[in-house]
């Protein structure tokens, strides 16, 4: 009977539709909160020092929950924790893996599973922690201390390096975080290198690591890390003084020029790399003094020099430069973060003159941790200086003699 089979088909369609409607309603209203989080069935809250019976009851309730909905994430997590506290580590691991299959990017699942696997010393723990900080930037503040501890130990360091090779978005913030909180800069150096690999200039995190290495006395590491972050085209001819022709903007990091960014009213000068008239886009350093008391250094560059005799040559053009005793370039000793005694000084610059060559002998005796080349007023240590006018410098080259 065709009419009967048609009715049966319609009835079946209605039944299936009703079932699907009920399932959608049940899942969205019954199993999950409006927020999208799974809704938990009421479970007995364990009192402190729960008895064996009550724990057995909890387990039974958990079993019923999972029988009802094997994909209920919260119940699976609860089961995992229950198994772990009960000593069933393998069972707990299995439950966490199930939870990760259900919700591979769920925050608490990632957090708890990563903690579990790290407690077991399993590499999966670090991978999950990395996934957690990758997916939830808000969790970085909580996860970074763990990552720093793992970096300090040796068990996970190689794996962390492999993860860093992917240059995840959290890597640079992590290096910056760890650098300012005392993590060994030697451990951070390879991560900083990776985090800065895609950047045109050292990131703030990498700059922090370079500074920390230098301040720790690890000048060679600091210099080599910085070298890696110098654009390849500029590495063709680095010189003992980098960018001595002021052909590129100063990055104010590492062993590049640090040009003062302080307000003129506070330090009494402004310093900048400016274009000069002429073919080939020539540039030079110009420092303009406002006649007020001088504070700080307009331009400086840390130098890594082996013991020996050197000569610094360059071009200078003072313009209406008035000061008690003028200004000059010095090479000073650096220990840690303290800039110390003068090792060498140039002639003094005063008045007005066209571009003129100058040179200074520099003898490095190996008694200093490192050195810095800087422009400063000629003044006794601790005395104040007032300077007006301007000074231009170009083509600074340090030669080994």
């Amino acid at each position: 009977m065709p009419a009967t089979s048609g009715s049966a088909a319609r009835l079946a369609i209605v039944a299936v539709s009703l079932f699907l409607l009920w399932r959608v309603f049940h899942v969205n209203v019954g199993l999950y909160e409006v927020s999208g989080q799974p809704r938990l069935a009421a479970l007995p809250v364990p009192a402190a020092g729960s008895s064996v019976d009550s724990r057995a009851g909890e387990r039974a309730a958990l079993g019923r929950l999972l029988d009802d909905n094997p994909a209920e994430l919260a119940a699976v997590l609860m089961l995992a924790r229950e198994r772990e506290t009960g000593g069933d580590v393998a069972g707990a691991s299995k439950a966490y893996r199930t939870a990760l299959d259900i919700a591979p990017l769920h925050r608490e699942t990632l957090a708890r599973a990563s903690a579990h696997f790290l407690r077991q010393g399993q590499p999966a723990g670090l991978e999950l922690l990395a996934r957690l900080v990758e997916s939830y930037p808000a969790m970085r503040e909580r996860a970074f201390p763990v990552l720093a501890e793992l970096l300090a130990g040796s068990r996970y360091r190689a794996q962390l390096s492999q993860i860093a090779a992917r240059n995840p978005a959290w890597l640079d913030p992590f290096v910056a975080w760890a650098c300012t909180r005392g993590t060994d800069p030697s451990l951070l150096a390879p991560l900083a290198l990776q985090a800065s690999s895609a950047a045109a200039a050292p990131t703030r995190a990498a700059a922090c690591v370079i500074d920390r290495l230098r301040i720790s006395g690890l000048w060679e590491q600091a210099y080599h890390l910085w070298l890696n972050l110098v654009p390849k085209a500029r590495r063709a001819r680095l010189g003992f003084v980098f960018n001595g022709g002021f052909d590129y903007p100063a990055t104010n990091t590492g062993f590049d020029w640090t040009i003062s960014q302080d307000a003129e009213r506070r330090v009494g000068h402004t310093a900048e790399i400016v274009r000069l008239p002429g073919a080939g886009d020539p540039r030079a350093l110009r420092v303009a003094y406002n006649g007020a008391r001088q504070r700080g250094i307009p331009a400086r560059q840390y130098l890594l020099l082996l013991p020996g005799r050197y000569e610094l040559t360059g071009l200078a053009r003072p313009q209406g430069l008035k000061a008690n005793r003028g200004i000059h370039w010095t090479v000073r000793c650096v220990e840690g973060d303290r800039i110390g005694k003068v090792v060498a000084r140039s002639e003094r610059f005063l008045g007005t003159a066209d571009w003129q060559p100058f040179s200074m002998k520099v003898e490095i005796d190996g008694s200093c941790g490192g050195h810095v080349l800087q422009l400063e007023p000629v003044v006794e240590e601790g005395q104040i200086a007032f300077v007006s006018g301007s000074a231009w410098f170009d083509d600074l080259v340090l030669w080994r003699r």
Partner: protein
Amino acid sequence: MKLRPVVKAIAVVLSLAAVPNLFAQQGPAPVAPAAPAVASLLALEGDALASTVSGLVAVTQGATFTNGTRVLTMAKSTGTIEYTDGCLVNLGPNMRVEIRLGAPCEQRQLMAVQTVLDPATELALEGALETATASIPALVLGGALGGPAGIVAGGAGIAALVGTSPGDSVSPN
């Protein structure tokens, strides 16, 4: 066999002590007419620098060096220094070596120092793995992410934890 990493570490430390603590920027130019070339750079993959009288310059495969020249490799770069006496010194990433023809070949090889260590190298130098850091996640992760007390089995505890995750939708919809 267990002593090998320790012996290696001691050898590297001795080699570090034997060379100046700073690298690079000294010595004659890579090709100096006054001094004969005693080594050359082979099989360069990536970037390398060498010291000259005015600082470091980039060098390419086949560059020749006089005694006292410092050669550096950059990250992800490797190469081999071949001396005129046949001694070969392999350079890995971020290494620095000083050309020293007069020294025994083994010493020259040990003078190649990695300045920015990668973790694998560092582990080899340490010679042994530390014991498990199992307590770290328990103390730090557990505490930071809700604490073991908060993860004690129980609907209320779990519900509280899950409830702290607004916006982390795991709904199948």
